């Protein structure tokens, strides 16, 4: 199972996670549903996780994988709070459309 490091160049993983990260950014920019935007952020976090794990495995250094672990922990906490905020927003506006949240303008 260890041969992926020798066969696939590290650049392949860099490009793969760059592509996934950019898909996440496009999702944040083009969608209005707060939950989908949140999911796109998760996609971006996962791209970063993949890249960190790849760097860690290719250089034989365990620190990167520990960081991935911390990112996952923070993501779990973030999702709990974020979804609670979205539920509260739905309760107040009856929708999850972020364009309705423009009260801070003007």
């Amino acid at each position, binding site marked *: 199972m260890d041969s992926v490091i020798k*066969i696939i160049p590290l650049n392949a993983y860099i490009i793969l996670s760059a592509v996934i990260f950019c*898909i996440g950014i*496009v999702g944040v920019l083009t969608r*209005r549903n707060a939950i989908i935007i949140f999911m796109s952020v998760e996609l971006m976090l996962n791209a970063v996780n993949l890249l960190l794990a790849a760097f860690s495995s290719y250089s034989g250094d365990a620190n990167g994988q520990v960081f991935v*672990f911390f990112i996952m922990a923070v993501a*779990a906490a973030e999702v709990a709070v974020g979804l609670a905020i*979205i539920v509260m927003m739905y309760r107040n506006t009856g929708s*999850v459309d972020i364009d309705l949240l423009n009260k801070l303008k003007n």
Partner: protein
Amino acid sequence: MDKMFYFLAFLAILSALMVVLVKNPIHSILYLLVTFTSITGHYILFNAQFLAAVNFIVYMGAIMVLFLFVIMFLNLNGETEPQKSTLVKFAGVISGGLLLLVMVASFKKAVTIPLNTEVDTQIGLIKNLGMVLFKDYALPFELASVLFLVAMIGAVMLAKKDWK
């Protein structure tokens, strides 16, 4: 092994695209689940067993269930999905594509340091990671638990309906 990589990479990119493209939020969640599955597959290819298991449990078993739960709870579907204007979508896709272009171009020009080919493939095992985690990162680990406590209390306070 390389076939496995290309298959998983293709699956990840395709399903990530579908997350952003499909209208129905429930379908988006299921595609995101496929993306996470393929990323778990990549971790297994690295022999990062612990990360694969945690990704499985935390992302697929907990986070995505929460998303699915909230979407079912709020009863969102394709018809209620708000849409941005075509112009904004177009601008979003172009700026995302430009970012990708810049990133890939800079990677092409970057100088690659030759990596040590005889790396230790056992670092992803739970024993080694536990050693690093509890020796070098003991304080961040404890702080993460405080973070969880704060998040838990915060989520309960935010979602509680009638607050006296």
